[in-house]
């Protein structure tokens, strides 16, 4: 799932400064699940904006709307009427959603209200961690199902760097585990440590030719 985080208010206020009629648009999929852009966050941002602008004596009128997936043109089309009424849109969807909105309403500025950060999973309630780098060349079969591309701070393919901290923690953050120590433990548990002894040649970073494009095979 895509994980995002609300942008700092300063940035949002700056983007919306010239406008007096704005739509706050939420998305009902990934960003709802990660508490960044669902209906609840839409209401909070809208309220916060109204408060901010009223303190500046520069009233703003705000509409609120959410669609199931902002990265789908058909679903975004459902809120067309509301978009027509406003001068600008602040979208709480991921980058894909913001761009879909921008493309659908080319005459309206559509601003990102969140920073899209990574593909991840909840470690516990309210805490999400990065799991996948969408590299287009999955390596997980060789690493006991732990991705060194994003879970190792350096994306190393042939084992840990020399900076591992005591207890197998990451060089850059004692709160994070060294991915290669995790991989070692997992493979050891599975009796497959030989996988870690293999040499892996430099990765093909063009496995996905950017910008990515996938054509499904026709049935």
């Amino acid at each position, binding site marked *: 799932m895509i994980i995002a985080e609300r942008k700092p208010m300063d940035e949002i206020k700056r983007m919306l400064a010239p406008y007096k009629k704005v739509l706050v648009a939420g998305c009902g999929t990934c960003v709802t699940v990660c508490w960044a852009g669902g209906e609840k966050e839409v209401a*909070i941002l809208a309220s916060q904006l109204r408060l901010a602008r009223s303190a500046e004596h520069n009233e703003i009128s705000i509409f609120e709307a959410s669609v199931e997936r902002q990265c789908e043109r058909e679903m975004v089309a459902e809120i067309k009427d509301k978009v027509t009424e406003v001068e600008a849109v602040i979208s709480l969807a991921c980058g894909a959603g913001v761009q879909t909105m921008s493309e659908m309403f080319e005459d309206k500025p559509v601003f990102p209200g969140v920073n899209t950060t990574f593909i991840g999973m909840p470690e516990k309630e309210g805490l999400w961690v990065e799991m996948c780098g969408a590299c287009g060349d999955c390596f997980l079969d060789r690493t006991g199902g732990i991705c060194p591309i994003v879970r190792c701070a350096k994306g190393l393919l042939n084992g840990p760097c020399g900076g591992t901290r005591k207890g197998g923690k990451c060089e850059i953050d004692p709160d994070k585990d060294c991915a290669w120590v995790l991989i070692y433990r997992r493979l050891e548990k599975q009796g497959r440590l030989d996988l870690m002894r293999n040499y892996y040649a430099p990765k093909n970073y063009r496995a996905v030719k950017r910008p990515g494009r996938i054509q499904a095979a026709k049935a």
Partner: protein
Amino acid sequence: MNNCIVAFCCEHSAYPAADLAGKLKLHYPENLRIIRVPCAGRVDLIHILKAFEKGAAAVMVMGCEGGACHHMTGNTRTKERVKYCNLLLREIEADGRLVAMFNLSPNAPHKFVGAVNEITKRIKESGR
């Protein structure tokens, strides 16, 4: 409005504490408006923000003491939520201290009145 203080009071603690304050005829400012909730945990950010939108001078969220929440984690979660609300207010250059969480037991009417006085003091300090 209005310059009222909106107090979301848990029906297991702050609300009965306020009742007791009434029975003892302890006085507190008239601009207090109490909204009864089943647990402090029910109070959401939007409730607090809307109160400010309507012109409230301050918002109090009042729940049970530390380990005594009727629903185990309602008061601690809301404490975190109120802390986040402080941040949301500071982000828009408002005085974050004007939303606050108070923990008290149902038999603490003086603590209830003390909390109201405390928030009233903060309102004065913030210049409203």
